[in-house]
């Protein structure tokens, strides 16, 4: 029995807190004991003998390899680590699908990373699901995890919330990684959103060099769905022969008249384009030897496979 700190034997005269036994505090000795021998498998995901792992991935811009780490608690109590690698190939944004066999047991965890330390995020999308052997890849019965990954940014099951391809901040792109194709002489430039992508355009810019043929050129920008225009934006500038003037259309900016050989015009705010949509110049009076060049675009891109 503990000594009472406040009893008569305390001759110091100090004021002490009451001893803990007076409050029946039970923190010193746990009342609960845990079973460490007949443990229920620490997973809600039973993997049957016919189940397989479906891995799907795609990468923007460059080839990458998806790394998938899986742990399964086998019926005999052995935890089996499994490691899969899925190479996306160099084809832009191609969708790669792999089916991998599993073993009966309880799925403890799944983690996806990638080999490439691509700067930023949203360049490689991955999803991991469970399917029954008889099912096709479109009949997964359990989505485990889905999201953008890279070498330093993993996703996993069971902790990650599954994402869609169009979730998140998008990947900042410039002309260097999502090109506006060069235009031929006497032709307007055309940028088409690639298949399996969604693009938000912040600005698009090009240099029009006019030939000696005397004629007034009137550049405008057209945004369409591949056929039907839904925005036609003039530059408010007339360019004569033998001049080089840079045109920039940017999100929400005002029209600015020609100044230092530069023209500024607006784009619709938060302009989001789906695959096949186009941003193209439309130069009334363009001459055979006129040339659009120095084409560049700034925005964000997401994968978007329907």
């Amino acid at each position, binding site marked *: 029995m503990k000594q009472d700190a*406040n*009893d008569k034997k*305390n001759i110091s005269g*100090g*004021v002490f807190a*009451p001893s803990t036994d*007076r*409050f029946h505090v039970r923190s010193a000795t746990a*009342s*609960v*004991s*845990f*079973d*460490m021998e007949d443990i*229920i498998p*620490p997973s809600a995901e039973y993997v049957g003998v016919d189940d397989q792992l479906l891995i799907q991935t795609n990468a923007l811009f460059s080839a990458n390899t998806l*790394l998938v*780490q899986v*742990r399964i*608690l086998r019926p005999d109590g052995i*935890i089996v*680590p499994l490691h899969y690698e899925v190479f996306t190939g160099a084809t832009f944004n191609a969708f790669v699908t792999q089916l991998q066999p599993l073993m009966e047991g309880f799925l403890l*965890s799944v*983690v996806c*990373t990638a080999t490439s*330390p*691509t*700067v*930023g*995020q949203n360049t490689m999308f991955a999803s991991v699901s469970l399917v029954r052997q008889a099912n096709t890849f479109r009949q997964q019965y359990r989505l485990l995890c889905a999201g953008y990954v890279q070498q*330093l*940014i*993993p996703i*996993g099951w069971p*902790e*990650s919330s599954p994402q869609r391809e169009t979730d*998140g*901040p998008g990947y*900042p792109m*410039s*002309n*260097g990684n999502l090109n506006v194709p060069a235009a031929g002489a006497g032709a307007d430039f055309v940028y088409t959103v690639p298949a399996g992508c969604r693009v938000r355009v*912040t*600005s698009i810019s090009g240099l029009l060099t006019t030939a000696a043929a005397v004629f007034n050129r009137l550049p405008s920008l057209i945004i369409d769905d591949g056929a039907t225009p839904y925005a036609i934006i003039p530059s408010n500038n007339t360019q004569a022969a033998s001049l080089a003037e840079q045109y*920039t259309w940017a*999100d*929400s*900016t*005002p029209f*600015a008249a020609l*100044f*230092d050989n*530069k023209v*500024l015009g607006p784009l619709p705010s*938060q302009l989001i384009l789906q695959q096949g949509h186009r941003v193209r110049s439309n130069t009334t009076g363009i001459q055979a030897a006129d040339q659009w060049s120095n084409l*560049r*675009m*700034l*925005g*964000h891109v997401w994968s978007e496979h329907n």
Partner: protein
Amino acid sequence: MVRAQLSDQKNISGGVFAPTEEAFKLTVKPQGVRFLNRAVQPPSQVYVEAEDDLAVSVASSVTGEAVTFNYRLLRFDGEIIEGQFVVRPANNRSVTKYSESLAEGFLLSMSCQATAATTRGQTFVRVSLTSPAFQNSLPSYMLMADYVTVQMAPAHPNGRVLAPSEGPGWVRGFAVANPAPGFAISQAVPANARWLLKAFNATMVTDATAGNRTEELIVTVGGRVAFQASAIVVQAPSKNVLYSGAPLSLVAPLDTALNYFPLAPSLTLLGGDLVGTTALGGGPADQWSAITLAVEEWLDNV
């Protein structure tokens, strides 16, 4: 047996103590459910093998950061082990890694808290389990990944697994060092940072060299010029003018000590991209000063 009252005659200290629990007898309806308190299943889904490590990575842009990690592990013998360690990342957004060896058991919880970061976008933490079964310290179980501050303590369970560029960032004024006289501004986005450029502010004092100056704002992304816009009006010699850049509908300023750059919203820049100026005309002693960029910043690639 009735316990002794704290305020009875034996209490010679004279102190006033809380009343005993008998004074608060509660009468409740008896429970219909009874719970195990012996041989209870471990209250965790996270089984830790004997060779597993708790692996953390921390990156920060603030000086003097120290992130304290706390965890509780139900050891194989039924004892709850409490662990704590501190990781001190550099303020250059580089990743600092640390691994803590764990005993076999069940991870009950972990959480972390910062000592310097006060908002999202400053200090990012990622926590996982690693197993030697997977080479190169690849994670075997993701526990959480999120920003941490002095008040917000992300945790497992009930935490989130996020990328550092998700969610709100750090809205800040970034002070740019003055360039030498006669030189333009050129500020690189720091490595492992992502900026949303919101506004630009700087003062240009022109020398007596004859001729008007046309100042231009220039944004370079991935080594290529991605946005370039001229100021609304020219600046004459021997003038002191404050330039502002913002997504505005611009008109020529009535105050000749002011000038504007049009600036597109949603200009998102990665590490190494440049925000700066260029000029048409100028003098050897033209001087930019008091340069501030308003940005929303995230850590990136960490």
